């Protein structure tokens, strides 16, 4: 629906219910006699008395002209709003009307009241009525006897947990979280190679339970995942138990209420869980990637429902996103093809040398102690482990270098058959020393609660051109 136009001159939007509107009502009679004036009334069509007001019964004028407060006084020239004031501000009203005596017997200032067009009980319905035509998705009607939650399951649209039904009202509200147009294409989603629009991502975000402020993070994570480098097609199709792990960075993680502290990987935080869930719902519903079909995981892992956490904002070890090229202080996501997290316990090390030995020993076992170079890993250092490094003056580089140094594997120990185990590297490596992780293949970040001498390891998938490269991308709204 097109926005209704406004006549040139002064325009006032009022409602009878508002005391400030009743206060200024007598002024409108005088103004109407001296200059072009249009008055729109939201509730009582006979208000203000003595003025020929237009009843904005469906609130179309108020909605389209973004009236949030009554009274609102506008000056319109050539069909365009050139000036606006809200409530009663005598100085503003005098300037806009050119009447230097206006309201001499009124107080200098009175705040207005909320416009009916932003009444929480009406806003969703108005948004659907006036902005629903922006949406392109097919509208699916539910039968009267159909339970709306069950209807989502019946159509195959859920990840196994109930989803929030994506009504037009909810999707429109979600779209308030982004400045992007609903029909903008965000990415091409495997395996069906379907272009996904901002609107379809918003639908998934509603279903996942996101708040609108999370939408830019979902959009950015999808852009990062749907690249040839990250290769979500392969991550989805593999028999290995990996899925997209999203590490969120920057001050925005705090603004949207993400958790980088106690139970960072676990339940209980809406932003963490719903961002990770939304991207997987896009892969499922838009990309067509469903378990048992293209998704051939032998075991999978619970993180394939959602695995998203914030890294610590004030870690002595710095930021993973910044290390990977994000601007310091910027919001960013890093997507990593990873399995579920495992815990590294070391409650006794008080020197960095001892602690790094523990971490290296645990990292050595990622996927198999005799398989090296081909898998990456994320090491999530807990605050109490981080303190051991920080107090000894070890920075990020020293920790990573120290780990690589301790993760050099003699070929004779890891070739096929060594140790009585058939699995391992090809025999041709027997005389070489191989690193457990390729350069850059060990991703260091910090998160977790303040108590507990633990860190966590998230094992990866086939790395590089063969499989998946981690991708870091700054968040754009």
């Amino acid at each position: 629906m097109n926005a209704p136009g406004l006549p040139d001159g002064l325009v006032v939007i009022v409602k009878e219910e508002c005391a400030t509107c009743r206060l200024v009502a007598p002024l409108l009679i005088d103004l109407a006699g001296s200059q072009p004036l249009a008055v729109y009334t939201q509730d009582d069509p006979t208000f203000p008395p003595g003025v020929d007001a237009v009843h904005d019964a469906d609130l179309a004028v108020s909605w389209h002209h973004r009236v949030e407060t009554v009274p609102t006084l506008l000056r319109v020239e050539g069909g365009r709003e050139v000036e606006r004031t809200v409530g009663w501000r005598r100085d503003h009203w005098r300037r806009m009307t050119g009447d230097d005596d206006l309201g001499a017997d009124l107080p200098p200032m009175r705040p207005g009241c909320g416009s009916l067009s932003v009444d929480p009980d009406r806003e969703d319905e108005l948004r659907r009525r006036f902005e629903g035509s922006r949406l392109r998705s097919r509208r699916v009607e539910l039968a009267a006897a159909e339970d709306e939650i069950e209807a989502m399951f019946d159509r195959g649209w859920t990840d196994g947990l109930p989803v929030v039904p994506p009504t037009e009202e909810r999707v429109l509200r979600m779209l308030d979280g982004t400045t992007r147009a609903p029909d903008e294409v965000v990415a091409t989603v495997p395996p069906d190679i379907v272009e996904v629009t901002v609107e379809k991502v918003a639908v998934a975000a509603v279903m996942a339970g996101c708040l609108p402020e999370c939408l830019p993070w979902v959009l950015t994570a999808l852009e990062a995942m749907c690249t040839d480098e990250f290769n979500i097609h392969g991550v989805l199709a593999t028999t290995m138990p990996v899925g997209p792990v999203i590490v969120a960075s920057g001050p925005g993680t705090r603004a949207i209420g993400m958790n980088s502290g106690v139970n960072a990987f676990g339940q209980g935080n809406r932003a963490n869980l719903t961002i990770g869930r939304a991207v997987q719902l896009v892969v499922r519903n838009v990309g067509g990637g469903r378990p048992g079909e293209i998704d051939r995981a032998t075991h999978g892992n619970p993180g394939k429902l959602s695995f998203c956490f914030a890294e610590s904002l004030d870690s002595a070890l710095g930021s993973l996103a910044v290390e990977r090229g994000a601007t310091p202080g910027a919001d960013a996501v890093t997507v990593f093809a990873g399995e579920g997290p495992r815990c590294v316990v070391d409650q006794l090390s008080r020197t960095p040398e001892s602690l790094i030995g523990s971490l290296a020993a645990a990292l050595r076992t990622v996927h198999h102690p005799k398989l090296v170079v081909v898998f990456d890993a994320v090491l999530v250092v807990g605050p109490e482990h981080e303190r051991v490094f920080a107090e000894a003056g070890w920075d990020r580089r020293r920790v990573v270098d120290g780990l690589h140094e301790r993760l050099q594997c003699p070929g004779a120990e890891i070739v096929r058959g060594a140790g009585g185990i058939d699995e391992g590297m090809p025999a041709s490596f027997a005389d070489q020393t191989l690193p457990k992780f390729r350069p850059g293949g060990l991703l260091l970040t910090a998160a977790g609660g303040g108590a507990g001498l633990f860190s966590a390891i998230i094992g990866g998938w086939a790395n590089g051109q063969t499989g998946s490269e981690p991708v870091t991308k700054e968040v754009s709204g």
Partner: protein
Amino acid sequence: MNRYVLDPTGERTLPERAPSPRPAALAGRRVGLLDISKPRGDVFLDRVEERLVADGATVRRYRKPTFSKPAPVDLRHEIATQCDLIIEALAD
């Protein structure tokens, strides 16, 4: 009041393609063997090639750069223009 939700799917319309007719015999046919680059796929395909050649087919071998990604469009085009039949090998 009627209740509606928005379709969360990609809303694709699937093009339907009929499989090519099954050939009566392999003699004189050009058969492509696509190795997806999984370990030991070549072992399997070597044996398939022996059997096909014995049946009088001409065999051409192809290989995807990595098993984890779809075959590049140029490779798909090459196969489509050079072969009458294709066998794709998954092996581990």
